[in-house]
């Protein structure tokens, strides 16, 4: 049997997913036995033209990480889709938009103003913003267009599988790679993870009745090590988040922030968490409820931390 051909690509991402692919440690030797990497900009010197010159469907599997936020991301998504038999949205950015997707609370103009003018470390008295085309003595230069709205990979091209996580855990990555190597791929559209249930299902903390009078941010308290973090008033996202990570964050005394996306069957992770969270507030008095809610300074940003582009509304309305 000829070796599998694998491509890896990063679009709008931080690079963490690239490291996560290497976090499979010595299993990478097993991967190298059966697969050749034919494209991997972060690790190997291939050019975009090399991919464009490949025959359609000549790549067996593409692990695509990163959201789609500019013309270049979108171009490579379409190119790699055409060249790959199996397209995997690898990591939360490609799957749900993730942190780059929080830009959907703003638009291009507001993002540029923040990045190129308002940031304290920026000096830009002439208010120069990136242009798609600019004339210089040597000719015309072009850079990819920056979009108003961040999209997920599946909103851009047809995606076969999703690997959740920011970044995906080692065992989740290997679960996907093993399925590829052994040719035992699940039904199309599957979110590849060890669990379809909530993180709470894997969490070993003691759970009693959830009644909360005050919410805290992680820096405000040192939580008790055994007790459910949500019951201690921390916004632990475990009950609205897909498991498979083995409840790593709660194990380290930190609340889950929701990076594995919604549990099976849920469309909008944000409202799912909102519903659960509001239910556990220990008050029936509207004014007291309002006071308790004031402990949550950024509800939409918290609930949609990883999933705004993949949520029902996809973005905020900018007037």
């Amino acid at each position, binding site marked *: 049997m000829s070796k599998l051909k694998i491509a890896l690509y990063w679009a709008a991402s931080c690079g963490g997913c690239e490291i996560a692919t290497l976090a499979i440690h010595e299993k990478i030797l097993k991967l190298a036995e059966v697969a050749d990497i034919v494209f991997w900009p972060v690790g190997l010197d291939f050019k975009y033209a090399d991919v464009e010159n490949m025959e359609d469907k000549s790549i067996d599997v593409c692990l695509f990480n990163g959201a789609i936020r500019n*013309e270049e991301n*979108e171009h490579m998504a379409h190119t790699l889709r055409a060249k790959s038999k199996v397209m995997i949205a690898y990591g939360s950015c490609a799957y749900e938009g993730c942190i780059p997707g929080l830009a959907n*609370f703003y638009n291009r103009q507001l993002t540029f103003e923040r990045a190129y003018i308002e940031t304290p470390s920026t000096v830009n008295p002439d208010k120069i913003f990136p242009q798609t085309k600019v004339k210089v003595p040597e000719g015309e230069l072009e850079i990819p267009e920056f*979009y*108003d*709205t961040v*999209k997920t990979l599946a*909103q*851009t*091209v047809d995606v076969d599988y999703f690997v959740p996580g920011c970044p995906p855990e080692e065992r989740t990555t290997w679960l996907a790679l093993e399925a590829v190597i052994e040719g035992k791929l699940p039904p199309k559209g599957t979110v590849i993870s060890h669990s379809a249930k909530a993180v709470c299902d894997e969490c070993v903390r003691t759970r009693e009745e959830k009644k909360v009078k005050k919410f805290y941010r992680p820096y405000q308290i040192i939580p008790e090590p055994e007790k459910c973090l949500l019951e201690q008033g921390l916004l632990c996202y475990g009950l609205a988040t897909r498991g498979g990570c083995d409840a790593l964050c709660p194990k380290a005394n930190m609340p889950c922030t929701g990076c594995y996306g919604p549990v099976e069957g849920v*469309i*909008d992770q*944000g*409202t*799912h968490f*909102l*519903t659960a*969270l*509001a*239910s556990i*507030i220990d*008050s*029936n008095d*509207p004014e007291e*409820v*309002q006071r308790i*809610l004031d402990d*949550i300074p*950024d*509800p*939409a*940003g918290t*609930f949609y931390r990883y999933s705004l582009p993949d949520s*029902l*509304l996809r973005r*905020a*309305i*900018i*007037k």
Partner: protein
Amino acid sequence: MDKFEPKIVAFCCNWCSYAGADLAGTSRMQYPSTIRIIKVMCSGRVSPFFVLKALSVGADGVLVLGCHPGDCHYIEGNYKTLRRIPLLKKALQQLGIEEERVQLEWVSASEGARFAEVVNEFTETIKKLGPSPLRRAKESTQEATHVQA
């Protein structure tokens, strides 16, 4: 704008508010035809997701109507709603949607007049606000600048 007839979705609980709406009807009370009633067993069944969904498919406003606090058929369903709607309103504002577009009211089975009053007032509120920004965004060309898949 004078011609703007809001589309309003009203989630009414089976035990109080739907009966209240029924009473308003059988008593021939006048209220605008802006509302589309969806009966649910309890206001506690109204997930904030339903509210977002209604707004995203073209509702200009959403009413959530339940039994008065203390009167819930399921003891505490409406208390959960009482906590959820304010949190949803906070999140909506961040998403660029006026919080006044979502309103929670208590209407009992005997309050037909109250039901008509709530619908009248809410219709006026939405008329002042104009069409939902989600509808406007869909119709405007602003979205067309995003490259479509």
